[in-house]
């Protein structure tokens, strides 16, 4: 098992290095000037030049690249150009919010998605199947910011159950849960839709396998056939989707974060992009790359748990 993990990590290293270089170049190729963003539109060229020098933007690009790489290798991501705070501290400030939102959305997705997928597969072409498929199609095609506004209109404005500004302090658990409810539901809806569809199609495939027919012929109760024999085998594609989507979720939660006014990684990266905070952008990209690699690794490991054959290959 350890060998398996190590091998996966080793493969990830060159990927990370390439990502770092591309990130560094991309961030600087994007037109725009952080000094201008900082100083505003009536600043003179002189003031802008002074600011660029202060930000270290006047150094040759290769020097900047070497400094960046050296920093990443020593585990230091530098400081934000705008706030002068360490990037790691900025990320740690918002990370709990992103993690709780992602996990909550994931849980909602799995808890509702898998049973719905099974229901759909077992009633193939029945009304329950059509209803589930229609719902999941709606879930997939509905833009997150539209569903977010609708949720707010109903639950925050009409019913007043939840706040519109979902950024409760970290030290107040009940307020925090209330803040989390709508955003996680919004993000979870898409997840439910994905999981339902994948579970359904995977389940349909498995249900037509010979061993299922054999189990049925032997008189195993229908419920046991589905939940014990079929589900385990049908889960592999589901885990793949959930794993892949986890990374997407962390990045794509930005719309949800903006509409619900939550702090989070997505908002941090969009903010850094708008303000051309180069160092922050770089740092975040590095962190994202790590997260994606980590998600993939976890997915691989989960395969091993579900299907022991994976470990041996």
């Amino acid at each position: 098992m350890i060998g398996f993990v190590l091998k996966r990590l080793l493969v990830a290293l060159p990927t990370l290095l390439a990502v770092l270089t591309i990130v560094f170049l991309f961030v600087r190729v994007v037109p725009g000037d952080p000094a201008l963003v900082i100083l505003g539109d009536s600043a003179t060229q002189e003031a802008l030049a002074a600011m660029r020098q202060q930000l270290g933007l006047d150094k040759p690009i290769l020097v900047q690249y070497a400094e960046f790489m050296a920093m990443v290798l020593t585990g230091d991501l530098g400081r934000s150009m705008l706030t002068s705070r360490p990037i790691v501290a900025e990320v740690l400030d918002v990370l709990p919010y992103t993690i709780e939102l992602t996990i909550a959305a994931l849980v909602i997705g799995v808890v509702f998605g898998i049973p719905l997928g099974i229901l759909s597969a077992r009633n193939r072409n029945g009304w329950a199947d059509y209803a589930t498929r229609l719902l999941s199609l709606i879930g997939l095609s509905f833009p997150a910011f539209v569903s977010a506004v609708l949720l707010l209109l109903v639950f925050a404005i009409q019913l007043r159950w939840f706040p519109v500004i979902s950024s409760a302090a970290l030290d107040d658990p009940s307020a925090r849960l209330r803040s989390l409810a709508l955003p996680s539901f919004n993000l979870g809806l898409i997840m439910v839709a994905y999981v339902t569809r994948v579970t359904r199609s995977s389940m349909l495939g498995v249900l037509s396998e010979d061993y299922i027919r054999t189990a049925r012929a032997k008189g195993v109760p229908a419920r046991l056939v589905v939940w014990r024999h079929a589900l385990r085998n049908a889960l592999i594609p589901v885990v793949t989707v959930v794993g892949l989507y986890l990374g997407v979720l962390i990045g794509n939660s930005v719309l949800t974060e903006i509409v619900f006014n939550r702090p989070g990684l997505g908002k941090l990266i969009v903010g850094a992009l708008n303000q051309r905070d180069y160092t922050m952008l770089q740092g975040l990209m590095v962190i994202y790359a790590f997260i994606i690699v980590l998600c993939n690794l976890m997915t691989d490991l989960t395969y091993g748990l579900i299907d022991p054959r994976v470990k041996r290959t």
Partner: protein
Amino acid sequence: MRRFTIAAGAAAVAIAGLCAATPVAAQKTLNVAMGAADLGALDPHRTATTQDKAIIGWMFNGLVRIRPGSISPADIEPDIAERWESSPDQLTWKFFLRKGVRFHGGYGELTSDDVVFSLKRAADPKTSAFSSDFRAISDITALDPYTVEIKFREHIPSVLGILTNYQGGYIVSRKAVEALGDEFRSKAVGTGPFAYADYQRNQAVTLAAHKEYFRGAPRIDRIVYRYIPSDASRDLAFTSGELDLMFGRADQKWVERMRQTPDTQVLIFGPGELGAVHLNITKKPLDDVRVRQAVAHAINRAQIVKFRGESVFQAAVSIVPEGYLGTDEKAPLQPYDVAKAKKLLAEAGYKDGITLKAIQTSQPSMLSVMEVVQAQLKQAGINLQFEVVDHPTFHAQIRKDLSDVVYYSAARFPIADQHLTQFYHSRSTVGTPTAVTNFSHCGMADAEIDAARVATDPEKQKALWKEAQRKLIEAVCSVPLAGNTQVWAKRGKLDLGYDLKGSLSLGPLITEASTLR
């Protein structure tokens, strides 16, 4: 038993927590939302973006101030300085400071040393975005702890104007700037009614009442200034009662809808921001004045105003925003006349029309205006091609002189000089070392602009500004479209404590007298 003790302990902690929370809830917290993603900076000398101006206005004072609610230089009154005098030639000014003005957070009493430091900092391009405003200052000295002398090289339109509670005129604490270094950007220290307390990136800045404020302790205890870039969620948070004051939209439908919302007041105030299409006179075919005249005649201002809504937009009267000191309110702008535009194009040898390129920001409020302009120009055979880019890219590229046509909207200190100098003086031309925002490369009114700046006779000064506007309009350096006012909304429970007609900080001032019921 042990389990019971733990449970009882936990309950006690919970109850204590609830009790401790009560006085916090009784505090008067003003919840504000800004339509931006994040703070730029709180350092007043180093930021000129709209999202920072309002909050900075609540934290700082100037030597003098324009009475809250007004933007007229005629309403200038004492702020940190309790009185001032000037030499007969108006080149030497003495300011006598109030005693007992205290900085936020234990940075002590403000003295003339802070004033000298602050104004020198504002005049230095290395530390300030507004250094050009202070170019005429030759020396600033502290005569004693409560007296400052400022000497000018030449006469300027309004000495008190550059020393008001606005941009470079804000006074910062010398000790704080030196102690905090780079951190001063987000933890700035001033003398105003509210002090920095906390900042959460992309979320909010929290200000706390400055109990030692020299005009008296503020009646509002805390201000949470949130960054909510999404128009929809800002409106929703306001509707649900989570906000007391918010940045609005210069949009007729929005204003009408908010006016229907119970317990809501839409605040419409100055200064006017003027949107103008700047034409680069060095690029073909715009180097031919007839082509530029054709562009001017093809634009229908009335239609743009109708499109954007009459309660927040007014057709431009000149190339300087309406109502500024020195604006020619009846400037000879080219009237809308498509036939004449076509004729002028034909005369210039472009019978089959022309194509112009504009780098255009994707910001919806600006892009939508330019789409109307694009459709209007098409009628005259002028094909305006957009290259749509995100807002920071737009700002960087137009300053590199990459766009034939630049649509730019701005409000400045309400004296014609700043607007004319920054947009139409050759010294401000983009691509030069002293560049600001002269996108047209015009310079034909330099003499008038410079002469007006140092003129001592107000009538003569006005005449010079008028002549400068005439020349620049005749040369069609830009086609001014429409001006819009500032739009915010507030709840009935917030009483600003003054009559809001205008605010140089582009947001309602929250003063020590503002209350929250």
